[in-house]
């Protein structure tokens, strides 16, 4: 019997070590379900996000410098040649109309947040994302009120902008977004705010049952709206100008 004493001891120890390891591993790996999560994990996400944001910022800065350089070069050339100057001036106008330039002006900033979660079930559910037609409606109302430029979470609304529910995400301009949503619009602040806040209007609908979205509207003198960062692709649509020269000329008057 005494011969087995050591073996039993080792067996018990192995069992304890095994238990310790498995307990530890399960607390580390099970964290993606939410609930009690090691703060280090959350911090790692936050750090990654910060790093990416900084990278994004520095890249944008680089892009702006490059474009500045190009513009200066173009302006220098245009100063020498009148017809070139005309083309470049026109180009700027249409670029602005295509939403490819950052703009600023008076307007409103609307912040939309999901309701405070009431229970464990509702906290995984985003009222805003699953009812993205509210966003569509809101944007449509702002356009109707004469908005000249609109963005949602930094994505410029252009002619090809979609707001689509893809799996668990809402994509805008094919870029995934998450609440809170910040909708910016440039235009006459009174008209913009008035149009969306009328009785039984879109904001009232968002605030009421069953959506209970938290809404904050602020007027600003200098709303800055970024440019569209995607590209326009025309693979099927071809210019059809022969019969429309006249129409186009009248548009430029």
């Amino acid at each position, binding site marked *: 019997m005494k011969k087995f*004493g*050591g073996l039993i001891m080792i067996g018990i120890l192995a069992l*304890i*070590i095994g238990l310790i*390891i498995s307990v*530890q*591993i399960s607390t*580390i790996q099970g964290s993606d379900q*939410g*609930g009690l*999560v*090691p703060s*280090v994990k959350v911090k790692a996400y936050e750090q990654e*996000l910060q790093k*990416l944001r900084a990278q*994004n910022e520095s*890249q944008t800065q680089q*892009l702006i410098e*490059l474009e500045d*350089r*190009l513009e200066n*070069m173009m302006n220098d050339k245009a100063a020498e040649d009148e*017809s*070139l100057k005309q*083309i*470049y001036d026109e180009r*700027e106008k*249409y*670029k*602005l*109309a*295509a939403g*490819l330039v950052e703009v600023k*002006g*008076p307007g409103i900033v609307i912040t939309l947040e999901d309701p405070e979660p009431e229970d464990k079930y509702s*906290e995984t559910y*985003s009222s805003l994302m699953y009812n993205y*037609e509210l966003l569509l*409606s809101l944007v*449509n109302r702002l*356009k109707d009120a004469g*908005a*000249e430029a*609109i963005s949602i979470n930094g994505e410029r609304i*252009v*002619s090809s902008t*979609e707001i689509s529910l893809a799996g668990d995400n809402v994509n805008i301009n094919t*870029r*995934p977004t*998450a609440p809170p949503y910040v909708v910016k619009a*440039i235009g006459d602040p009174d008209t913009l705010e008035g149009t969306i806040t009328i009785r039984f209007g879109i904001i009232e609908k968002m605030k009421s049952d069953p959506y209970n979205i938290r809404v904050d509207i602020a007027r600003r003198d200098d709303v800055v709206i970024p440019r569209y*960062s995607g590209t*326009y692709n025309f693979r*099927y*649509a071809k210019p*059809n100008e022969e019969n*429309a020269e006249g*129409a186009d000329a*009248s*548009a430029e008057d």
Partner: protein
Amino acid sequence: MKSLKKGTAAVLLVALAAGIMLSTQMGMPTGEKLYVSAKALDDMKVLIDSEKESIRRTELQIEDAKKQIDDFEALSADDNTEELIASGKAELNYYRMASGRVPVKGDGVKIVIADSERDLFEGENVNDLLVHDIDVLMILNDLLTAGAEAVSINGHRVVDMSAITCSGYTIRINGIFTANPFVIRAIGDPGRLYGAMMAPGSNGLILKEFVRFECTVEEDIEIPAYTGPLSYKYMTITKEGETN
């Protein structure tokens, strides 16, 4: 006998040390815990993905800008004004096209949405049989998601700031009143566009249960240019570097 006990004691010690080491190692990152909902974690991951996508796009734009500078330098070094004008015009045309100021033609789909002509069921709400702005907005949104390149509604080009409002018999698009029904034309991959409209569970099919909804694939659809003004009252271009 004595040597066996010594052995056991040694094993016990080593195992204990190993156990303590392991547990301190693995216990390190769990030190502090936060209560975070699954949604908050998900949202954070989405933001990370979104930021990555944004970086990818900016990279493309940087490439593009570099190429433009190179091209421009090459052309202006030769003092080739004609070439400069030609490339300037090509760019101008791209921006005109992008801003919806060029009439276009191509394959796509034609959609007709109209108020239903059937009688009301008993107790049915009359609103169910009428077309509302949100119905058209959803269809338009689905078309854009499916990659529509140009869209017109009742003959009016849909551009970035086109609003669609529907009140009673009239529909207002780009500020111009037109009459029911809605005729939407979209240029893009006909298969994808048609699929987006008529796939099971699509907004199109849901709409079809209540109102008149038709979608047909058509060739050489013509969509007019947007003829609104190019001037703006409120917004101005931010001079580069001014932000933040």
